[in-house]
Each structure stands twice: as C-alpha cells, then as structure tokens.
C-alpha cells in the first residue's frame, strides 16, 4: 500500500479521531520511517484498531502505556511492512482515578501480554480482556501499587 493510498483510507475514520499527526525520521529513505499518529479518546480505540487490523491488514507490533500526569495514554502501534509506515493509535484516558479502556485482545490475541503488563505497572484496566492476571510483578508485590506511575517513588 502506497502512502497516499493509506492517507485516503485513513480519512474514512476521521470522525472517530481527535486529529492525525505525521512525523518522519529526517534521515530515512524515501517512504521509510513515516509515522502516522491517530489521536483519539479511549471510547474509539477498539473501532480504530479493528479498522487498521482488519480493513487495512496492518500488522500489530506492540503497545505502550504512558503516564502523562494529567491523563494516561495507551498507544497501539501498527506497521505496514510494504511501505515501512507505522500507524500509532494514541488513546487518551482522562480519568486518573479509575483508568479503563477497552481491550483489543479479543480482536488481536497477540496483545494479551502487553495489556497485562500495562495493567501491572500502570494500573490501567482493560475491559473485555480474557485474562487480566498479574504478569511481571513479583508474587508478593502489594496490590494497588503501580510502580511506573509518576507519583510512585522507589
């Protein structure tokens, strides 16, 4: 899929997004290193990921969780290997007290462990996740302490 083709397809979900940002690695070869950020609220994340994964057949790479102080961000990264373009869905979770977002594991089984990891270290809940047990923290780590949150000092 060529770049402009991807752009055209992305415009069909524009109403679900806050906005689209583009960045490009300065030294990258033509076409490679292109990144598209799709900024959205947490309610839209499943539908956008479904579109990228099923309709555009992008490959799911990994997810990232960020504590951005005023909110949490969950970033799902998708790649189009043909063009070298990476599309990142950047979802904002505004509720810090009870952060929750829809899980994409029912759609993409490969996301199961990274969502469990984000749940462990940031305390983000994933709705509809089939198996949200502790993954990487040690067995006697206290419940309710999330080590990668900004307010936690080690």
């Amino acid at each position, binding site marked *: 899929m060529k770049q402009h083709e991807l752009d055209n397809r992305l415009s069909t979900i524009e109403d679900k997004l806050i906005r689209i940002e583009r960045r490009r690695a300065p030294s990258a070869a033509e076409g490679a290193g292109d990144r598209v950020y799709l900024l959205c609220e947490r309610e839209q994340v499943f539908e956008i990921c479904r579109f990228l994964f099923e309709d555009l057949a992008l490959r799911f790479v990994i997810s990232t969780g960020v504590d951005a102080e005023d909110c949490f961000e969950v970033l799902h990264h998708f790649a189009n290997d043909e063009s070298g373009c990476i599309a990142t869905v950047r979802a904002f979770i505004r509720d810090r007290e009870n952060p929750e977002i829809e899980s994409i594991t029912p759609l993409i089984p490969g996301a199961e462990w990274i969502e469990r990891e984000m749940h462990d270290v940031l305390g983000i809940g994933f709705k509809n996740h089939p198996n949200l047990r502790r993954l990487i*923290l*040690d*067995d*006697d*780590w206290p419940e309710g302490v999330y*080590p990668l949150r900004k307010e*936690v000092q*080690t």
Partner: protein
Amino acid sequence: MNWKLWSLKKSIWVFHVNTGACNNCDIEIVNLLTPKFDVERFGIKLVGSPRHADALLVTGGGTRQAAVRLREVYRQTAKPCVVFCMGACACGMGIFEKGYHMAGPIDKIVKEVDPNAIIAYVPGCPPKPETMISGVVKALSAL
C-alpha cells in the same frame, strides 16, 4: 589444607543461576563451554542441579521474584560452595540499581541465608570469558 576445601578446589562443578540478567552474561557463560574456551579441560563442568554443584554462577542483579529462588538454590547447594557473582549486575545491581523490582545485590541475598558464604566477584558488563576463567582461578587460589 582441610580435605573439604581440597576436594572443593579439585574440579569444580558449577550451577548457573539467572536472577534477572539481561541474558548477555549468560551467553558469555555458555561461551565458556564452547571448544574455544573449553573449561572442561580444567574440570569445570555445568551441572543440572545445585546438589551436584561446588559453585553457583549467579548472573543478574537479584529481582524480588528471583531472590526467594536464589536463597533456596543456595540452601540446596552442597557445602562448602563458592558463589560467583558474574557481571556488574550481580556484583552491585549495575544499571538496575534504582529499579523498583530489585532485591539485590547478590551478596546481600546470599548472606541472608549464610553470613559466612564464600563470595567472589567478577565485574564487567558482561565479563569476557577470559575474565571469568581468571576470576575463578583467583578465587580458588585465595581459598
């Protein structure tokens, strides 16, 4: 020399314990067994159980989850035994020092079980196989 020490130093069998290493130290340890370094010519052999071992080769800084296991492995190792801290992580937690998940360093964890444990340190990130061999030789000659 007391006969226990004499037999300990004769041909040491080692058990490898990873307590949260990045795997690089472990690769260097495996490297020791390849034909290029071939530590078996010195009688150093990797064994599958701490009960058969004279020495523990510990890599990694000692995570909270691994600390419990390391103490158990140390308890089960036939005494006297030597604990080798392989790499910067094992010697002093290295780059993971401030991590929320750390319980190390290794000497502290082992000394909780046995305050008189014999501990040798081989620094490096990772130490070269040559350094590891020389560390073992130095530790054994100091006993």
